[in-house]
C-alpha cells in the first residue's frame, strides 16, 4: 500500500535534493499507511 501523505513528503524532500534510503522510504510509508 502506498501512503499519499508519505509520498508527498518524500517527493518534497527529493525536490530539495535529499536522497532517502530504501529503509527511510519504507518506514515513512508504513507509518503514513497507519495514519491514513
Amino acid at each position, binding site marked *: 500500500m502506498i501512503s499519499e*501523505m*508519505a509520498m508527498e*513528503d518524500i517527493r518534497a*524532500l527529493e525536490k*530539495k535534493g*535529499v536522497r*532517502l534510503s530504501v*529503509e*527511510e522510504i*519504507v*518506514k*515513512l510509508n*508504513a*507509518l*503514513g*499507511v*497507519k*495514519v491514513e
Partner: protein
Amino acid sequence: MVFREPTIEQEIWFENAARIFNTDDDTTLFLTRAFSMRMGEELPDWSKPKKVRKQIDEFIKKELKGFTARQILSSVNYCIYGSDATVDEFPCSEFTPTEEDIEKAAEMSNVIGVVHEAQAMRLGISMEEMKRMTKSELQSVINRALEREGVDVRKDNKNATIADYYRTLEHIKKKHDVVKENG
C-alpha cells in the same frame, strides 16, 4: 531459549539494570534486554552489577551462540513491538539490522508510566498482579476502563501514530540536514 513479550517485572528489571550499568552503548543495553526477556528464567538482583554482567556474559556465550545478530535482534524487536510493516516488505534474509534497530531494541518502554496510570485509575490490580502482566495486557485493561468512562481510545492512538509519523519525518530531515522552513 525462548523470548517472549516482557512482563512488567522484566521491564522494570531491565530499566533498573540499565541505570546501574550507566552506559549509552546500545548493544550492551540490547543484550541486557534480551537477557531479561528469556521466558521462565529468574533474573539476578539488578543492584549487583558485577553479578548481572557475569550472568549476561554467560548467556551470550552459551545461549546466543549459533544465532546471528540479525536473528536475535529480529526476535527481540518482534516480542516488544510486534510485526514491523517495514520488515514485512522484504524477505527476512535480506534484512540487515541498522543502528536504529539496535537503538529501538535498547529503548526504555516507559513501563513505570503505565503502572502509575493503572494505580492512579484505581483499577483494583495489585502490584504483584501487575508485575506478572505484560505492558500491552495492562494497557488493554486501562483502555477498557477509559472506554467505559467515554474516552475515545482509538482517536488517542491515531494521534499517537500521527505524532510518530512527524517525529520520524523530522528525524530524517535532521539526518539529511534539511533546513527547517517557516510555517
